[in-house]
């Protein structure tokens, strides 16, 4: 069982992550997607907002997205504490600095703004969308990589 405590191979990880789509549909009747949880959190924070994006959002119907997000946190805690022989930090040491903090906030802003503008993220578009043969999701995924590659190769010397 030693392998269990090491990072899992790509094929096992890929198969099990892919199975999230049918399992979530079968067990809960929900389409796999994570970034809606941001909108749900916003809609709960300011239910009477002037912004229709938040005030008109079905915050009761969307509650499950926060339960799902909470579960992801617990699962990751279990994996790191009990299923890892030598857990590695998720972020490099260099982020513990003023510039690192700014990078995370700005990068986070791009994640929140971008996923909500695009209508989904890696889960809702790349995995659920493409697997349901939804062409805008394929386009979104191409754009995710275009944006990521542009930043990494274009601004890499400044950022990393």
């Amino acid at each position, binding site marked *: 069982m030693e392998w269990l405590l090491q990072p899992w191979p790509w094929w096992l990880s890929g198969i099990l992550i892919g199975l999230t789509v049918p399992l979530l549909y079968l067990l*809960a009747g929900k389409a796999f997607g994570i970034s809606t949880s941001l909108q749900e959190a916003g809609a709960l924070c300011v239910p009477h907002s002037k912004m229709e994006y938040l005030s008109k959002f079905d915050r009761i119907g969307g509650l499950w997205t926060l339960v799902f997000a909470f579960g992801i946190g617990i699962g990751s805690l279990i994996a*790191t504490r009990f299923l890892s022989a030598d857990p590695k930090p998720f972020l490099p040491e260099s982020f513990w600095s003023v510039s690192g903090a700014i990078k995370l906030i700005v990068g986070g802003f791009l994640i*929140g703004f971008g996923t909500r503008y695009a209508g989904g993220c890696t889960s809702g578009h790349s995995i659920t969308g493409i697997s349901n043969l939804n062409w805008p999701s394929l386009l979104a995924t191409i754009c995710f990589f275009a944006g990521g590659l542009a930043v990494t190769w274009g601004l890499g010397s400044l950022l*990393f």
Partner: protein
Amino acid sequence: MNTDTQPSSPESTEAKTRSGSSPTTYVMVLLMGIYLGILFAKSEVAHWQRVHDMFLFREAHMYLIIGTAIVVAMISMLIIKRFAIKSIDGKPITYKPKPYHKGVIIGGMLFGAGWAITGACPGPIYAQIGAGEWLAVLTLIGAMLGMFAYAALKPKLPH
């Protein structure tokens, strides 16, 4: 499983106006979240270095995981559609297509940039925080600010 989906029951009208899920569904969602959280950590897709090495084409790890996940999900969906398999509470499984608009391109590229900088997409943000990587709280604060900015600007943005 539960009876509140029967059209004749008096609760059904309430269930329509209040579109919350059943307790069973929330338990299932929580369990699936835990399942996925374990996978995000054990596959290391929530590790900044893995995301960075993906965008640098240094290793195929992330590409292989995402590609395999898509293929597995695609085959699963074909089976579900082919045999009209229903969810455990008896409801048909239907995918609601995400529509095309300009935001798919612009928003998609902005998100990709954020993914490359922070090493996290939305799921891994929760995985990082859950595992005690407290710096990722900053990523989440940024993501909430970005979501609020989109909510405010939505009427003015091209769609």
